[in-house]
Protein backbone atom coordinates (compact mmCIF):
# COMPACT_ATOMS: atom_id res chain seq x y z
CA UNK A 1 0.00 0.00 0.00
CA UNK A 2 1.25 3.46 -0.90
CA UNK A 3 2.58 5.57 1.94
CA UNK A 4 1.76 9.28 1.94
CA UNK A 5 4.51 11.18 3.76
CA UNK A 6 4.28 14.91 4.40
CA UNK A 7 7.47 16.79 5.16
CA UNK A 8 6.88 19.79 7.33
CA UNK A 9 8.69 22.47 9.29
CA UNK A 10 7.26 25.19 11.46
CA UNK A 11 9.72 27.78 10.27
CA UNK A 12 11.43 28.47 6.95
CA UNK A 13 15.09 27.80 6.29
CA UNK A 14 15.21 24.40 7.94
CA UNK A 15 16.34 22.65 4.75
CA UNK A 16 12.96 21.00 4.28
CA UNK A 17 12.92 20.88 0.48
CA UNK A 18 16.55 19.80 0.35
CA UNK A 19 15.95 16.93 2.75
CA UNK A 20 12.72 15.99 0.97
CA UNK A 21 14.53 15.72 -2.37
CA UNK A 22 17.42 13.77 -0.85
CA UNK A 23 15.27 11.33 1.12
CA UNK A 24 12.78 10.76 -1.71
CA UNK A 25 15.63 10.06 -4.14
CA UNK A 26 17.25 7.73 -1.62
CA UNK A 27 13.96 5.82 -1.32
CA UNK A 28 13.80 5.63 -5.13
CA UNK A 29 17.35 4.23 -5.15
CA UNK A 30 15.89 1.22 -3.34
CA UNK A 31 13.84 0.48 -6.47
CA UNK A 32 10.72 2.31 -5.31
CA UNK A 33 8.37 4.46 -7.36
CA UNK A 34 8.24 7.84 -5.70
CA UNK A 35 6.54 11.16 -6.37
CA UNK A 36 7.13 14.51 -4.73
CA UNK A 37 4.36 17.11 -4.82
CA UNK A 38 5.46 20.68 -4.22
CA UNK A 39 2.50 22.04 -2.25
CA UNK A 40 4.56 25.03 -1.19
CA UNK A 41 2.43 27.04 -3.60
CA UNK A 42 3.41 30.37 -2.06
CA UNK A 43 7.15 29.83 -2.41
CA UNK A 44 7.90 26.81 -4.63
CA UNK A 45 11.45 25.69 -5.26
CA UNK A 46 12.14 21.97 -4.93
CA UNK A 47 12.33 21.60 -8.73
CA UNK A 48 15.65 23.46 -8.62
CA UNK A 49 17.26 20.51 -6.81
CA UNK A 50 16.31 18.31 -9.76
CA UNK A 51 17.78 20.72 -12.28
CA UNK A 52 14.41 21.79 -13.65
CA UNK A 53 13.73 25.29 -14.93
CA UNK A 54 10.33 26.86 -15.21
CA UNK A 55 10.57 26.38 -18.99
CA UNK A 56 10.99 22.63 -18.50
CA UNK A 57 7.43 22.08 -17.35
CA UNK A 58 4.23 22.80 -19.23
CA UNK A 59 1.82 22.08 -16.39
CA UNK A 60 2.03 22.62 -12.66
CA UNK A 61 0.03 21.76 -9.58
CA UNK A 62 -1.78 25.09 -10.05
CA UNK A 63 -3.08 23.95 -13.46
CA UNK A 64 -4.45 20.78 -11.91
CA UNK A 65 -6.20 22.76 -9.18
CA UNK A 66 -7.79 24.97 -11.84
CA UNK A 67 -8.91 21.94 -13.83
CA UNK A 68 -6.61 22.72 -16.76
CA UNK A 69 -4.95 19.30 -16.68
CA UNK A 70 -4.96 15.98 -14.85
CA UNK A 71 -2.70 15.43 -11.86
CA UNK A 72 -0.67 12.99 -13.95
CA UNK A 73 -0.15 15.65 -16.64
CA UNK A 74 1.57 17.82 -14.02
CA UNK A 75 3.90 15.01 -12.92
CA UNK A 76 7.36 14.90 -14.51
CA UNK A 77 9.68 11.93 -14.42
CA UNK A 78 12.86 13.57 -13.15
CA UNK A 79 14.86 10.37 -12.67
CA UNK A 80 17.03 11.17 -15.68
CA UNK A 81 17.66 14.68 -14.32
CA UNK A 82 19.30 13.30 -11.20
CA UNK A 83 23.05 13.45 -11.68
CA UNK A 84 26.23 12.73 -9.76
CA UNK A 85 29.03 15.20 -9.04
CA UNK A 86 30.58 14.45 -12.46
CA UNK A 87 27.32 15.36 -14.19
CA UNK A 88 26.69 11.76 -15.22
CA UNK A 89 23.15 10.41 -14.78
CA UNK A 90 22.77 8.72 -11.42
CA UNK A 91 22.03 5.01 -11.29
CA UNK A 92 18.61 5.13 -9.62
CA UNK A 93 16.84 1.78 -9.79
CA UNK A 94 13.40 3.26 -9.04
CA UNK A 95 11.60 6.29 -10.41
CA UNK A 96 11.20 9.84 -9.14
CA UNK A 97 8.32 12.00 -10.29
CA UNK A 98 7.94 15.65 -9.41
CA UNK A 99 4.76 17.75 -9.45
CA UNK A 100 6.03 21.34 -9.38
CA UNK A 101 4.10 24.42 -8.34
CA UNK A 102 3.93 27.40 -10.64
CA UNK A 103 6.62 30.07 -10.40
CA UNK A 104 4.50 32.68 -12.16
CA UNK A 105 3.63 35.56 -9.82
CA UNK A 106 0.10 35.89 -11.20
CA UNK A 107 -0.61 32.20 -10.73
CA UNK A 108 0.70 32.24 -7.16
CA UNK A 109 -1.46 35.29 -6.46
CA UNK A 110 -4.52 33.60 -7.98
CA UNK A 111 -4.22 30.64 -5.63
CA UNK A 112 -3.72 32.95 -2.66
CA UNK A 113 -6.72 34.98 -3.67
CA UNK A 114 -9.17 32.27 -4.64
CA UNK A 115 -8.01 29.25 -2.68
CA UNK A 116 -8.94 25.82 -4.00
CA UNK A 117 -11.08 22.84 -3.25
CA UNK A 118 -9.27 20.75 -0.65
CA UNK A 119 -11.06 17.65 -1.91
CA UNK A 120 -9.62 18.24 -5.38
CA UNK A 121 -6.05 18.28 -4.05
CA UNK A 122 -6.76 15.12 -2.10
CA UNK A 123 -8.24 13.51 -5.22
CA UNK A 124 -5.15 14.56 -7.17
CA UNK A 125 -2.87 12.80 -4.67
CA UNK A 126 -4.89 9.63 -5.07
CA UNK A 127 -4.91 9.93 -8.87
CA UNK A 128 -1.11 10.17 -8.82
CA UNK A 129 -0.83 7.16 -6.53
CA UNK A 130 -3.04 5.06 -8.78
CA UNK A 131 -2.00 6.25 -12.22
CA UNK A 132 1.75 6.32 -11.53
CA UNK A 133 1.60 3.14 -9.46
CA UNK A 134 3.48 4.84 -6.64
CA UNK A 135 5.04 3.26 -3.58
CA UNK A 136 5.56 6.63 -1.85
CA UNK A 137 4.06 10.07 -2.21
CA UNK A 138 6.07 12.83 -0.56
CA UNK A 139 4.37 16.16 0.08
CA UNK A 140 6.74 19.10 0.38
CA UNK A 141 4.71 21.60 2.38
CA UNK A 142 4.87 25.33 2.98
CA UNK A 143 6.56 26.14 6.31
CA UNK A 144 4.31 26.96 9.23
CA UNK A 145 0.70 26.12 9.79
CA UNK A 146 -1.70 27.22 7.08
CA UNK A 147 -4.70 25.76 5.30
CA UNK A 148 -2.68 23.88 2.66
CA UNK A 149 -0.33 22.48 5.25
CA UNK A 150 -3.18 21.28 7.43
CA UNK A 151 -4.60 19.22 4.56
CA UNK A 152 -1.22 17.64 3.87
CA UNK A 153 -0.92 16.74 7.52
CA UNK A 154 -4.48 15.41 7.69
CA UNK A 155 -4.11 12.93 4.84
CA UNK A 156 -0.61 11.68 5.70
CA UNK A 157 0.24 8.18 6.82
CA UNK A 158 3.42 9.61 8.24
CA UNK A 159 4.53 13.13 9.02
CA UNK A 160 8.18 14.12 9.09
CA UNK A 161 8.88 17.36 10.95
CA UNK A 162 12.21 19.06 10.36
CA UNK A 163 13.64 21.36 12.98
CA UNK A 164 16.90 23.01 13.80
CA UNK A 165 18.34 23.02 17.30
CA UNK A 166 16.97 26.51 17.84
CA UNK A 167 14.59 27.79 20.50
CA UNK A 168 12.10 29.20 17.99
CA UNK A 169 12.05 25.92 16.08
CA UNK A 170 11.59 24.01 19.33
CA UNK A 171 8.54 26.07 20.31
CA UNK A 172 7.02 25.89 16.83
CA UNK A 173 7.53 22.15 16.60
CA UNK A 174 5.53 21.70 19.79
CA UNK A 175 2.63 23.56 18.18
CA UNK A 176 2.92 21.49 15.01
CA UNK A 177 2.89 18.27 17.00
CA UNK A 178 -0.25 19.36 18.82
CA UNK A 179 -1.99 20.02 15.51
CA UNK A 180 -0.80 16.72 14.02
CA UNK A 181 -2.24 14.89 16.99
CA UNK A 182 -5.55 16.71 16.53
CA UNK A 183 -5.56 15.57 12.91
CA UNK A 184 -4.91 11.95 13.93
CA UNK A 185 -1.64 11.49 12.01
CA UNK A 186 -0.70 7.85 12.64
CA UNK A 187 3.08 8.20 12.62
CA UNK A 188 5.31 11.18 13.35
CA UNK A 189 9.10 11.42 13.00
CA UNK A 190 11.40 14.32 13.79
CA UNK A 191 14.53 15.15 11.81
CA UNK A 192 17.04 17.56 13.33
CA UNK A 193 18.86 19.49 10.60
CA UNK A 194 21.65 22.06 10.50
CA UNK A 195 22.97 21.04 13.91
CA UNK A 196 26.27 22.71 14.86
CA UNK A 197 28.97 20.12 15.43
CA UNK A 198 29.45 21.25 19.04
CA UNK A 199 26.41 19.14 19.99
CA UNK A 200 27.17 15.45 20.59
CA UNK A 201 24.81 13.29 18.55
CA UNK A 202 23.36 11.13 21.30
CA UNK A 203 22.88 14.07 23.68
CA UNK A 204 20.97 16.11 21.13
CA UNK A 205 18.79 13.21 19.99
CA UNK A 206 17.99 12.32 23.57
CA UNK A 207 17.11 15.92 24.41
CA UNK A 208 14.71 16.28 21.45
CA UNK A 209 13.07 12.92 22.00
CA UNK A 210 12.59 13.64 25.69
CA UNK A 211 11.12 17.06 25.00
CA UNK A 212 8.53 15.90 22.45
CA UNK A 213 8.01 12.23 23.18
CA UNK A 214 8.41 11.57 19.45
CA UNK A 215 11.25 9.59 17.85
CA UNK A 216 14.10 11.39 16.11
CA UNK A 217 14.66 9.63 12.81
CA UNK A 218 17.83 11.45 11.85
CA UNK A 219 20.31 14.12 12.85
CA UNK A 220 22.08 16.14 10.20
CA UNK A 221 25.04 18.36 10.97
CA UNK A 222 25.73 21.61 9.20
CA UNK A 223 28.48 21.22 6.64
CA UNK A 224 30.42 23.27 4.12
CA UNK A 225 29.79 20.87 1.25
CA UNK A 226 26.05 21.51 1.50
CA UNK A 227 26.60 25.25 1.40
CA UNK A 228 28.87 24.88 -1.62
CA UNK A 229 26.34 22.75 -3.50
CA UNK A 230 23.79 25.53 -2.92
CA UNK A 231 20.74 23.49 -4.02
CA UNK A 232 22.61 22.59 -7.19
CA UNK A 233 21.69 18.92 -6.96
CA UNK A 234 20.91 15.96 -4.75
CA UNK A 235 23.58 16.05 -2.05
CA UNK A 236 24.02 12.33 -1.44
CA UNK A 237 24.72 11.75 -5.12
CA UNK A 238 27.40 14.43 -5.10
CA UNK A 239 28.92 13.29 -1.79
CA UNK A 240 27.99 9.62 -1.41
CA UNK A 241 30.43 8.95 1.45
CA UNK A 242 29.57 12.04 3.47
CA UNK A 243 28.02 11.53 6.94
CA UNK A 244 25.02 13.61 5.81
CA UNK A 245 24.46 11.19 2.92
CA UNK A 246 24.71 8.17 5.20
CA UNK A 247 22.06 9.73 7.43
CA UNK A 248 19.80 10.36 4.43
CA UNK A 249 19.96 6.66 3.56
CA UNK A 250 19.38 5.75 7.18
CA UNK A 251 16.13 7.78 7.18
CA UNK A 252 15.12 6.31 3.81
CA UNK A 253 15.61 2.80 5.20
CA UNK A 254 13.45 3.65 8.21
CA UNK A 255 10.66 4.84 5.92
CA UNK A 256 10.74 1.76 3.72
CA UNK A 257 11.06 -0.56 6.71
CA UNK A 258 7.74 0.79 7.96
CA UNK A 259 5.88 -0.59 4.89
Amino acid sequence: MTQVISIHSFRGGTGKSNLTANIATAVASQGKRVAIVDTDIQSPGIHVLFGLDEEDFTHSLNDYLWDKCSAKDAAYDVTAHVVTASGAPADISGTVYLVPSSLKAGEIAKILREGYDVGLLNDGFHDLINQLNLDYLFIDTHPGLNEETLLSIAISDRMVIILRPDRQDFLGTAVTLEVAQKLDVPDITLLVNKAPDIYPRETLIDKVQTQYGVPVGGLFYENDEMLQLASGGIFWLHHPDHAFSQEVHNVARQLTAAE
Partner: protein
Amino acid sequence: MTYPAHGETPAPRQQQPHGTGPRTMTDLLGLPDPERTLVNWLVRQRGASLADILAHTQTEPAAVQATLDNLLTAGFLTVDEASDPALFKPNLVSRKPRTLPDQLWNALD
Protein backbone atom coordinates in the same frame (compact mmCIF):
# COMPACT_ATOMS: atom_id res chain seq x y z
CA MET B 1 -33.04 15.35 10.50
CA THR B 2 -32.13 11.70 10.12
CA TYR B 3 -30.16 9.90 7.46
CA PRO B 4 -31.21 6.93 5.42
CA ALA B 5 -29.88 3.45 5.80
CA HIS B 6 -27.47 1.90 3.30
CA GLY B 7 -28.88 2.01 -0.22
CA GLU B 8 -31.62 4.51 0.45
CA THR B 9 -31.69 8.03 -0.86
CA PRO B 10 -29.68 10.28 1.46
CA ALA B 11 -30.52 13.69 2.69
CA PRO B 12 -30.09 16.06 -0.24
CA ARG B 13 -27.28 18.59 -0.32
CA GLN B 14 -29.66 21.54 -0.37
CA GLN B 15 -30.74 20.75 3.16
CA GLN B 16 -27.65 22.60 4.33
CA PRO B 17 -28.48 26.04 5.63
CA HIS B 18 -27.19 28.79 3.39
CA GLY B 19 -23.88 30.41 4.22
CA THR B 20 -22.40 27.64 6.35
CA GLY B 21 -20.19 25.77 3.93
CA PRO B 22 -17.71 24.93 2.70
CA ARG B 23 -15.45 25.12 5.74
CA THR B 24 -11.69 25.35 6.08
CA MET B 25 -9.12 23.05 7.64
CA THR B 26 -8.73 25.61 10.42
CA ASP B 27 -12.44 25.32 11.17
CA LEU B 28 -11.92 21.57 11.40
CA LEU B 29 -9.37 22.02 14.18
CA GLY B 30 -12.00 23.84 16.23
CA LEU B 31 -14.47 20.94 16.23
CA PRO B 32 -15.06 18.84 19.36
CA ASP B 33 -13.08 15.59 19.44
CA PRO B 34 -15.72 13.11 18.18
CA GLU B 35 -16.75 15.30 15.25
CA ARG B 36 -13.18 16.21 14.34
CA THR B 37 -12.11 12.57 14.45
CA LEU B 38 -14.93 11.60 12.11
CA VAL B 39 -14.15 14.39 9.61
CA ASN B 40 -10.42 13.51 9.78
CA TRP B 41 -11.31 9.96 8.84
CA LEU B 42 -13.62 11.10 6.05
CA VAL B 43 -10.86 13.35 4.68
CA ARG B 44 -8.56 10.31 4.50
CA GLN B 45 -11.29 8.16 2.94
CA ARG B 46 -12.45 11.03 0.69
CA GLY B 47 -16.01 10.07 1.59
CA ALA B 48 -17.91 7.12 3.00
CA SER B 49 -21.41 5.65 3.07
CA LEU B 50 -23.48 5.66 6.22
CA ALA B 51 -22.90 1.91 6.55
CA ASP B 52 -19.11 2.39 6.34
CA ILE B 53 -19.25 5.20 8.89
CA LEU B 54 -21.23 3.05 11.29
CA ALA B 55 -18.78 0.19 10.83
CA HIS B 56 -15.83 2.50 11.41
CA THR B 57 -17.14 4.32 14.45
CA GLN B 58 -18.73 1.29 16.15
CA THR B 59 -21.12 3.75 17.75
CA GLU B 60 -24.87 3.76 18.22
CA PRO B 61 -26.53 4.67 14.87
CA ALA B 62 -28.55 7.41 16.53
CA ALA B 63 -25.40 9.03 17.88
CA VAL B 64 -23.67 8.80 14.51
CA GLN B 65 -26.71 10.28 12.80
CA ALA B 66 -26.69 13.15 15.26
CA THR B 67 -23.01 13.79 14.60
CA LEU B 68 -23.50 13.69 10.83
CA ASP B 69 -26.50 15.95 11.25
CA ASN B 70 -24.41 18.52 13.09
CA LEU B 71 -21.58 18.33 10.56
CA LEU B 72 -23.93 18.75 7.61
CA THR B 73 -25.67 21.66 9.25
CA ALA B 74 -22.35 23.31 10.02
CA GLY B 75 -21.20 22.83 6.41
CA PHE B 76 -18.33 20.41 7.06
CA LEU B 77 -19.92 17.64 5.00
CA THR B 78 -22.00 17.23 1.89
CA VAL B 79 -23.90 14.23 0.60
CA ASP B 80 -22.91 12.95 -2.82
CA GLU B 81 -26.22 11.91 -4.26
CA ALA B 82 -24.72 10.59 -7.48
CA SER B 83 -23.04 7.72 -5.67
CA ASP B 84 -24.84 4.52 -4.79
CA PRO B 85 -24.89 4.18 -1.86
CA ALA B 86 -24.78 7.89 -1.15
CA LEU B 87 -21.48 9.14 0.26
CA PHE B 88 -20.84 11.65 2.99
CA LYS B 89 -17.93 13.78 1.78
CA PRO B 90 -15.81 16.46 3.42
CA ASN B 91 -16.75 19.95 2.26
CA LEU B 92 -13.51 21.86 2.76
CA VAL B 93 -11.70 24.61 0.90
CA SER B 94 -8.14 25.77 1.38
CA ARG B 95 -9.20 29.24 2.40
CA LYS B 96 -12.13 31.57 2.35
CA PRO B 97 -11.89 34.38 -0.19
CA ARG B 98 -9.72 37.22 1.00
CA THR B 99 -11.00 40.73 1.35
CA LEU B 100 -8.00 42.46 -0.19
CA PRO B 101 -9.07 44.99 -2.87
CA ASP B 102 -9.34 43.52 -6.37
CA GLN B 103 -7.11 46.27 -7.67
CA LEU B 104 -4.22 44.90 -5.63
CA TRP B 105 -4.76 41.33 -6.76
CA ASN B 106 -5.26 42.41 -10.37
CA ALA B 107 -1.89 44.11 -10.31
CA LEU B 108 -0.34 40.69 -9.77
CA ASP B 109 -2.22 38.96 -12.61
